[in-house]
């Protein structure tokens, strides 16, 4: 399963955090710093996978992508495929991009709720729920129609 999804910027500040295990609040903060330390040390020409620290409740691997100012990190266990998760990150980012029309770091700060909603349509309870961008957006659109998803 996927243990956690994190978006952290180049300075180690969390922009979006989602843990799918029961992990105490303090541990979460430590894990974010741990993940950041690990991925930020890696140069751009190495592989996108890193072994997780021993402090995770289960053996973990970090699958990450680095875009300009942000690291997108998915923390997974042995039951997921590294390369497939890498593409899932791509799908997540592309969906964000479509939803925010050319997404930037500030969008994630001011509309963290919306970013979470998108993620919730892709991953639920640590399991991959949907991988089709149109389908993800459609379920969000439903939200926009019924509620007041303030599309610009």
């Amino acid at each position, binding site marked *: *399963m996927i243990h956690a999804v994190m978006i952290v910027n180049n300075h180690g*500040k969390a922009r979006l*955090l989602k843990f799918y295990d029961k992990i105490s609040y303090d541990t979460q903060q430590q894990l974010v710093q741990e993940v950041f330390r690990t991925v930020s040390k890696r140069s751009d020409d190495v*592989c996108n996978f890193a072994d997780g620290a021993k402090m995770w409740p289960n053996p973990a691997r970090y699958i990450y992508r680095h875009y*300009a*100012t942000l690291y997108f990190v998915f923390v997974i266990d042995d039951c997921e495929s590294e390369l497939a998760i890498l593409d899932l990150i791509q799908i997540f980012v592309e969906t964000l991009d479509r939803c925010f029309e050319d997404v*930037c770091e500030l969008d994630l700060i001011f509309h963290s709720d919306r970013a979470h909603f998108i993620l919730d349509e892709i991953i639920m309870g640590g399991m991959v*729920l949907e991988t089709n961008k149109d389908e993800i957006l459609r*379920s969000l659109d439903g939200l926009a129609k019924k509620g007041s998803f303030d599309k610009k």
Partner: protein
Amino acid sequence: MAKFSKTKTGKDLGSKQFFDLIRSIGEAKSKQEEDKIIAREIAVLKSKMGEKDVDKKQMKEYVVRLLYCEMLGSNAEFGYIFCVNLIASSDLLQKRTGYLAVQLTISPDCDLLYLIVSAIQKDLKSTNSLDVCCALNAATKLINAELMPCLIQDVQNCLKHQSALVRKKAIVCIHAFWRKDEMGIGDNKQYQQVLCDKDPAVMACTLSFLQDLCCLNPEENKHLVSSFVSILRQICEHRLTKEYDYHRIPAPWIQIKLLKLLAILCHQDVERSKQAYIVLGEVMKRADSGLPIGHAVIFECVKTITCLVPAPELIESAADAISKFLSSPNPNLKYLGITSLSRIVLINPIYAKEHRDVVMGCLEDHDGTIKRKTLDLLYAMTNQDSVEVIVARLARFLAAAHDVYLKSDLVTNISDLAYKYYPTMEWYIQTMNNVIKLGEQFVDNQTVQGMLKMIAEGSEELSEEENEEFRVHAVESYYELLDTSDKLPETLVQIISWVLGEYGFMSQEYSQDDITDKLCDLLEKSPDNDTRGYIITALMKLTAQVTPVPDHVLELVASFKSSGSLALQQRCYEFLELANYGGLMSGVLPLDGCCEILEVDQDLSFLDAVVSSALARGAKDYRKNYFQTLGQEEQVATLKTAVYVNPMDKTGVTEEAAAVVVKETELALNVTESKWNKKMLEPQKEDDAPVEQQEDYEDDEEEMSPTHDANNGLEAEDGEKKKKKKKSKQDRLATIFDKPAGKKTVKKGTKKKKTSEAASPQSDIHDGNGRAASPPSAQLGVPGLKEQLVPSVGELTMANFEKTWKSHPAEGSGALAIPPGIDVDTMADRIMEVSNIVKIQTIGTQFVAAARHNSGFVLCHFQIDSTTFSIKVRSMMPDLTAAVVQHLQSSILG
């Protein structure tokens, strides 16, 4: 593509306050400054959210701001209730924000959960499918095993919902429930139906759940193989609509899940593996698109192929794919190549040879992840033929490594490989010496034990002469190592001391005096108490056959009598005492005695003469005092290890001292059937306990066996600590010895010590059982008494029980009639159940027990005498004692 530029204009960036907050945090120069800003923001939110009639839309923004603060690591607990309120909103977006907030903030054991559960219940029944989706999301994250029964029915109903989105979420939610409580979702079989859902996306979501179920119980799910094969074939043949394509590969995520399932179910199953062969070949061929997602599918195929019953053709194509991965410049593919190679070499080592150079090259890769994977691979690739080359390479790598995890893995891998495949024992010892030098802190005790075992027991393949030759070689090479190296790691010095002590006498090249002197030098130089302990023991063994023990050795050892480490002190005193009895010492520590098998005299018959002569002289029979009786019986069973094991268990010895004790015990017991360990104890008893001294015992206490003093002191210390009293050590010793029980005979003093220590782990076990087994409180007896008592687990041992007993003045007793045939354990369990009073130790038909009370302890002594059960209680207050007696009398049989 997304650029994530830092700023952008023309976007909705929320209220001005929020914008200002973000900006000021962005500009903060230190963590302290940032914390201050966040604290200010929290204060603002606290007052704003608490205002009356806050507009819901406004509230939603506050909640988002609150989430932001929490994400940065501060606690905003005050706001949780507002998040919960937002769930009840009729506006979907607000509701959803509320649900999001509670998922992110509230822990599954928070009280607010009950409010949330009722909201979820309501929303699961909503006619708006989006409400249902929100509720399912929240349930997945928040609901614990306890609350599941409230929701499971509603969630199951959602599996039949008309919206595919709801059905998808419902099955994922049930999966999450299952992970929290496997019994909480009813029969697992019913969920296999979801696999037949008309929407493939729902089917896909079921696969993860099935994967977990199959992992747990492959046998029961084997019948699914044909379904999975057929689904995989359909996907592979492009039967799904275009929507499921990703980069022109049909539904790659579903394919990967199915491949994983096949790997689990077809493992070691010839029939089912055959079913999967054809489709696997097909999937591999079609996925070869050169795109990352295609590689992901191929990689999964390779993994599955290595799990199936081997099919040469598939393995060949898997090997081809691996070669392609390995030779790729893309680091991700290289990673996949190494990972999959480590699987395929398990099937056929030939592939290891083919790629060995490439793999060795990967060790030099600048990517840490690939390095780690390569190590795993090399570990899997190693066999008798390649062990020397690979271990040499790994050792070189270890010397250059900096990363702590990497080093620790390397040390473990090298030690394992060397132990498994060593070509010669000399090579093994050499390699291990090297490993200890390079990464001492990562060498675990087990590895050290393995080395010593190898030296002590030798190899089965070699003759006894050859093994002896090897021991001589070990002694001489270690001696030379001491000569040539200035500073050796402590672990290595310990090993060297053990070897020299045990087998030093065998050496032809170096005389015993040479070795003794060398060890003396080492002892003088050594800064570590553990190591000193090893060296002193080695000296003791080495000089055991020499009468008298050389003076300079005794002087040196005597200088550690006042060491800060009690274990070390003990060793010195033992040595010095034994040295007075030359004949005894050589019998206690025979040459090459570490592999001899011990016979334990269970009845301690060798003491009979001493005891009867003491009795004849008019000494009291110590069975009459029940504490003494307790002592004797228990001693027999645990004599061998008691002194070494227990001090650290309960008596609060410093860690340092405890470590020595443990190490030494393990050494003696694990590696060899220790002889000297026990022998250490027995003669001491005889030496220290001549019956003639009986009358003078009180006066001579300070000169008594140091072991005795030290350990009793420690036990007392433990007891004292608990009571938060401070006394000087002197006082403590005085109080301990100022009791009749300890004065009987010296012999009993020593015996009692051991037994009392031996008591602790046992009582612990019983405590644990008693507590685990206790059902809800009993109805009879003194109401509320049980609640006042807290089970006393591990605080009291027999040693401090006696003392504690004396410090609790209020005594009371009672008795009740019981049916014949009830045993102690039943009674103890029952007493635990009705009163929280926990058994500490049993002796025959008696046992002692205790519980903690505000005022101190409640201490009990029970005895079963066919149909009478007598109770003796002590506590700090007469009222409490009386209440306990009354409670026990009225409730035990009730």
